[in-house]
């Protein structure tokens, strides 16, 4: 970690200390989360991205985003844009054309890329920053990856989230995949999650 004061745009803040090993560790955490929906994993510990971008969200982007992945950044996170541009080189794009959507509030499902029946993988990965994971109201998840329905406690999801997810699920195999990030914690809801109930 650099001891110099970060500049106004956060550009001076470092990325991964060990880019190869840290990206691998973060990828395995995200893979673990995607393979086990609702499982809370650690990501981005030791990373200091420009506020208000959460370390977990920043780690996911350093791990997966690059010049090949158009990225849409919530205006509320605009302070991190120069840092992300420098660290990942992901081109900024319109919401509907982005592979990664990084946001503090869920956009309307219809505004995000959902893929096509032939190319469902073109559906976006939405990285949603919320207040907390592991505390707050619990959601009951079921679907592939879960031996039995799992509970995910999350604080800061919109009240209408179950109906948002039901509409996303109805599109399957089209749809979006969701990564919930809070601080250095992360949980995933891949589109294969069949039901989300309060």
């Amino acid at each position, binding site marked *: 970690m650099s001891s110099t004061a970060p500049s106004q745009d956060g550009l001076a803040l470092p990325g991964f200390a060990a880019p190869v090993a840290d990206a*691998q560790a973060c990828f*395995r955490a995200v*893979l673990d989360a995607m393979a086990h929906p609702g499982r809370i994993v650690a990501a981005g510990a030791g990373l200091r991205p420009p506020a208000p971008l959460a370390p977990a969200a920043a780690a996911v982007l350093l791990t*997966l985003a690059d010049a*090949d992945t158009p990225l849409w950044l919530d205006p509320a996170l605009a302070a991190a844009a120069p840092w992300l541009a420098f660290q990942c080189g992901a081109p900024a794009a319109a919401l509907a054309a982005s592979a990664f959507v990084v946001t503090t509030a869920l956009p309307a499902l219809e505004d995000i890329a959902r893929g096509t*029946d032939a190319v469902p993988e073109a559906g976006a990965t939405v990285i949603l920053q919320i207040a907390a994971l592991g505390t707050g109201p619990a959601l009951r998840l079921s679907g592939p*990856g*879960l*031996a039995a329905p799992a509970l995910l406690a999350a604080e800061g999801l919109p009240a209408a989230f179950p109906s948002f997810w039901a509409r996303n699920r109805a599109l399957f195999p089209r749809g979006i995949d969701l990564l919930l990030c809070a601080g250095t914690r992360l949980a995933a809801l891949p589109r*294969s999650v069949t039901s989300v109930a309060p």
Partner: protein
Amino acid sequence: MKGYNFAYLDEQTKRMIRRAILKAVAIPGHQIPFGAREMPLPYGWGTGGIQVTAAILGADDVLKVIDQGADDTTNAVSIRRFFAATAGVRTTTRTAEASVIQTRHRIPETPLTEAQILVYQVPQPEPLYRLEPSRSETTQMHALADYGAMHVKLYEDIARWGQVAISYDYPVMVAGRYLTSPSPIPAFDNPKLHRMPALQLFGAGREKRIYAIPPYTDVRSLDFDDHPFAPPHARGACALCGATDAYLDEVVIDDRGRRMFVCSDTDHCATRRDAGHLGAEGVAP
């Protein structure tokens, strides 16, 4: 390791493969195209599996590689050495010790756990290929979940032979949506795909496709109500360890046609012999 990035592939390639793997997990059984790289061994030797393994492998992983169940065949030995040299990871032949298992055409007999990842080498990821060689056509068939042609093939097999004449690469439905090739594993192994606790990743290098079966996912081998899926079992016991519930290879042992059955899974067989199980011609290791 000198002269190479960790695990051989460059970081941009790993990111591309990692993105494909994550989408593959999110859409169980769906084949995701990826930019397969040229690897330092030819197509058909597991280039797809190697690229998937290279993208997931970390310094703490313990890698096992099997070829038709055996740890000591050329393909398995060279891939294990490749990762020992380019990633410096610990390798093992023990199924229970491995965190990542790359396999060609078998699923280990020892049940896998949530802490393990099984990586398959896949020659032909498209289960409909023999029925419809056009990739654009099969893409549409998958988009529409139009798998009637495969049911007709199974029906014709039953009408002609009295049974489904597929002994390996037996097509499965993953999570009730996608018709998927389990890679050329024997149909004997198909029941292990169903609700397996380990994550299963499939890599096809020449065909440039990655797909996945998440843990605890329903995987149904295609069949009919009046002709339920019934994987064949060898009529015999392993000559070395006496196992009757494992997948057995039939080996011709002399020029008078004498044969013996031995476990295809060499680690399973050795573990059983270590535990004192001996077959007709077995000796304690």
